[in-house]
């Protein structure tokens, strides 16, 4: 059993509105999975159910083949929630010591510092006096405090500057290399593409696509081959091939939409169409993503 997370036909309704609608997926050990989608797609609701903070209206979530709220599960997970919160009245090192004491095999303070970039100055600061960036580092450290096997981040990079973001993803890579399973949500396609091995694309509470970043990109971008050809020449032969999703003429050029541009090139030469000035175009990824998820502003 390598499955760390299994989500089976999970639905979550809030007052007749379905936030998550019959979603199923499973995540194996060592995977780095991005839950990608625009706001309101059901990402946070799904993550809350995985964490056992919300109960599914129907269906079942299992972590390590146990229910999410069980103690054995809690000891193996670490999480950073969207809302960064800290315990008032304590210094950073006191909070870290406290949270470490909850777990059977916590990471040492030194290890946590090395992973999260907390400074000695941060450690001595009272929680209520931390800046936004320091709070983020602290909550990252809290997520890792118990040396978790499964780490879940809900929109981890919101509010981080570019340097912290870069550092954060480097650390995530390090953790993934140690064999940790990582789930994070984001509405940045670029981030999911850079950091994840697998993307679960959410739209309107359901999974619109599930695959590697390359597969997701291929499925959401329209690739096309265009060329100039003698107008007299019949393109009949090309029509028979299933790789072609669409073919049309525009401004003296022939455009072929396809998922497999290599195969189209092969065909052009095989069928001796006499195509000249061949161009391969990839539709703009971000545009396609925006179209697919129906949101324009937040997908960068």
């Amino acid at each position, binding site marked *: 059993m390598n499955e760390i997370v299994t989500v089976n036909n999970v639905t979550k309704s809030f007052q007749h509105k379905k936030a998550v609608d019959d979603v199923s997926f499973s995540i194996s050990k060592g995977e780095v999975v991005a839950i990608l989608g625009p706001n309101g797609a059901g990402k946070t609701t799904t993550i809350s159910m995985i964490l056992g903070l*919300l109960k599914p209206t129907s269906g079942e979530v299992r972590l390590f083949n146990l229910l999410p709220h069980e*103690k054995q599960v809690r000891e193996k997970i670490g999480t950073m929630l969207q*809302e960064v919160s*800290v*315990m008032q009245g*304590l210094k950073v090192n006191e909070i870290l010591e406290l949270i470490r004491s909850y*777990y059977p095999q916590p990471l040492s303070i030194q290890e946590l510092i090395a992973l999260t970039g907390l400074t000695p100055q941060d450690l001595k600061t009272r929680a209520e006096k931390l800046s936004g960036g320091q709070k983020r580092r602290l909550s990252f450290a809290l997520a890792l405090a118990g040396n978790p096997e499964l780490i879940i981040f809900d929109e981890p990079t919101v509010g981080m500057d570019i340097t912290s973001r870069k550092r954060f993803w480097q650390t995530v890579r390090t953790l993934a290399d140690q064999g940790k399973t990582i789930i994070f949500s984001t509405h940045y396609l670029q981030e999911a593409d850079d950091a994840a091995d697998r993307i679960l694309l959410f739209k309107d509470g359901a999974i619109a696509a599930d695959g590697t970043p390359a597969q997701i990109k291929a499925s959401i971008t329209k690739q096309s081959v265009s060329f100039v050809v003698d107008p007299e020449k019949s393109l009949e032969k090309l029509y028979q091939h299933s790789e072609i999703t669409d073919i049309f003429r525009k401004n003296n050029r022939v455009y072929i939409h396809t998922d497999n541009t290599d195969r189209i090139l092969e065909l052009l030469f095989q069928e001796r169409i006499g195509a000249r000035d061949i161009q391969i175009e990839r539709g703009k990824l971000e545009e396609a993503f925006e179209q697919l998820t129906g949101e324009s502003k937040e997908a960068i």
Partner: protein
Amino acid sequence: MKTFQIQCKVEIIRILRNRYFVFWSLVMPIIFYYVFTNLVNSNIPNKSEWQAHYLMSMTVFSVMGSSMMTLGIRLVQERSQGWSTFLRTTPLSNTVYFAAQMVGQSVIHVFSIVIIFIAGALINDVSLTVLEWIMSGLWILLGSLPFLALGTLIGLMKKVETAAGVSNVLYMVLAVSGGLWMPLEVMPKMMQAIAKWLPSYNFGSGAWEIVRGGLPDWKNMMLLIAYLVLFMLLSNYIRRKQEVV
């Protein structure tokens, strides 16, 4: 068990670092005590009895305040800022968390009681028998339970501002009408009749009886227990209603 100890220790540290606690529960009662036993009411017939009586009033006032306000507001803060949500994802059990809050708060109460008693002994040479000191201290410690329950009830509010406002008003009204600031005898008959049923009066009354050489009335105890049960049932009921998501 180790987790429980660390959790208690942390709660205690947090309370001691809280400026509102230090001001409202330690500094204010001691200043009040000094003012009302030395600067005003100086021509009271039985001076030493009044000094012991008022020392109890102020200790009760202090402990009542930290039960309701320090605890209540902290609970709201932790929930509204998402800290409670984070804790729910950790292995810390709810029971340990809750128990540590209560134990931590009670240790703080012992601390406040000792400090204010010492202040009384130093300021006015209040002298009670060892048994009276211990008995009145214990009464105040145990009598704080209904107020801790009231604190958890306040802790269920959604906003820190509401919780702070409501608990402040409730605290003052209970303190004044319960005869903690001035003896009940100086109030109108009507007020006196109402006060006899308030938790604050019954809390104070037990301690006043002890320093007068008597014992708390059974009615004091029964009423405090009744309030404890009432507040606990209420807060359980509301919590359950809130949790249905």
